[in-house]
């Protein structure tokens, strides 16, 4: 067994540096709000994995789900929000195993922290709209439309992060089964929402 596993600690670029300063403030506020030291807080049963950006979260989630973990992707606590973030909520007791798997796949988080307050839950309501020959699925702020006759993706709309036009360029015109997925080529929360719409569309199109 390799022990202990450390999170990333060097070569920060400026974005990572800013994220780390958020993390420092977050940890300080945890101590202030709970009056507990870091040592005592390890007895809480949930923790969050904090990454530099959403693409890293998406990659780590894919790796962990492939290994059988049922994890929740959530919104970060306010202290570390920078505008386009996700964190992965994990059972604290599984932290070492999880970090080991992430290390092996070169997906280590920036840091881990105990859950100190209610995390924001992603929107999980879908809206389906039938246009006759076309079917649209909406998840959060993203919409994906296919031609029902051919299962070809004909439009993607909504969202405001820069990977939305990129994802649309890569996916529109492709068959639902042959299109690259937002999970593989997306990087932001809008990309993540589009993945949810894509998965729901596939469920709708599965006989």
């Amino acid at each position, binding site marked *: 067994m390799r022990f202990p596993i450390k999170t990333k600690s060097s070569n920060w670029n400026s*974005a990572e540096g800013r994220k780390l300063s958020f993390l420092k403030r977050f940890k300080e506020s945890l101590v202030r709000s709970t009056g507990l030291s870091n040592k005592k807080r390890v007895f809480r049963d949930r923790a969050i994995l904090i990454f530099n950006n959403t693409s890293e979260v998406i990659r780590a989630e894919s790796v962990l789900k492939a290994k059988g973990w049922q994890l929740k992707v959530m919104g970060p606590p306010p202290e570390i929000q920078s505008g386009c*973030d996700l964190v992965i909520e994990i059972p604290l007791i599984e932290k070492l195993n999880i970090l080991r798997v992430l290390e092996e796949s070169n997906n280590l988080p920036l840091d881990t922290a105990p859950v100190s307050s209610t995390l924001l839950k992603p929107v999980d309501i879908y809206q389906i709209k039938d246009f006759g020959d076309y079917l649209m699925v*909406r998840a959060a*702020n993203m919409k994906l439309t296919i031609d029902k006759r051919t299962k070809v993706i004909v439009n993607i709309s909504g969202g*405001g*992060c*820069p990977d939305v036009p990129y994802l649309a360029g890569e996916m529109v015109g492709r068959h639902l089964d042959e299109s690259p997925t937002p999970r593989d080529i997306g990087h932001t929360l809008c990309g993540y929402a589009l993945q949810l719409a894509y998965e729901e569309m596939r469920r709708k199109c599965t006989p």
Partner: protein
Amino acid sequence: MYAIVGTVPDPSFPLTAAPVTMRDNQLKCGDMAINVNRGTPALIAASLKVGEVLNLEAPIAFLAGDTGIGKGSRELYAFLESELGSFGLSILCFHYLQPDVDWHFRILESIRSSGSSPVLIADAGFMYAAKMSGDAEEYDLFTPDVGELAFLADEKAPHPFYTRGFILHEENKVPELITRAYQFRNAAKHLLVKGETDRIVCQGAIIDCIDSPKTEALEAIGGTGDTVTGIVTALITSGIPVDQAAGLACRVNRLAGYYAQPDPATQIADIVDQIPKALEETLGKE
């Protein structure tokens, strides 16, 4: 002079700051050619179409390639922080940029310290950052759709993905959401709320509603929100007050959509083509 700030979905696209023109449905910015498609290119194309009719000077485009990693957005932010004040801009429209509260603050500080007071318009990722930063009131116009309005109304949401109580397409909740967005000071001075019924809001009061023509397929077409933001930006540049320009832009955008006779597979370039005709007709009526 007006400027549009955004990204192009091509990682090899360099940081570019230059007047932008359009020929044969292709944008030209500096040495770079850009296809008209959803996102900032659609916004620019729509504003140029309005400019054709109203004889406006070409806008400056501040663009960088970004496919969501944020590198291009950060390079653009850094450029704007140091250079924006030197352009003497009267209207600034911010669009598809990686939401980043820290960089938003630095850009706003740069504008404040330049001593100028340009009309500030924000949509998409930069609007998300503006709300998150607590500086929404500094802006003259936000152009959210109903989902993004719910995000503005939720004082705790850092992104539309997390909006609490996000009820899909409950249009009847829009007035309540508008009130709440202003109550928590998360709205610009004006809102152009895109929906089944478009609503124009000034300091919390709904001053105009636009619900025709109704073209159902437009909801599925990527870029229809971008075009309305481009239209309103150009109309404001022409001297029309923000509240009037917002209502006019919604009417023009709807009419352009109607003229394109779209189905859900129609692409935004087909609607952009119809903007001059729709603008001339709408101006003729008014």
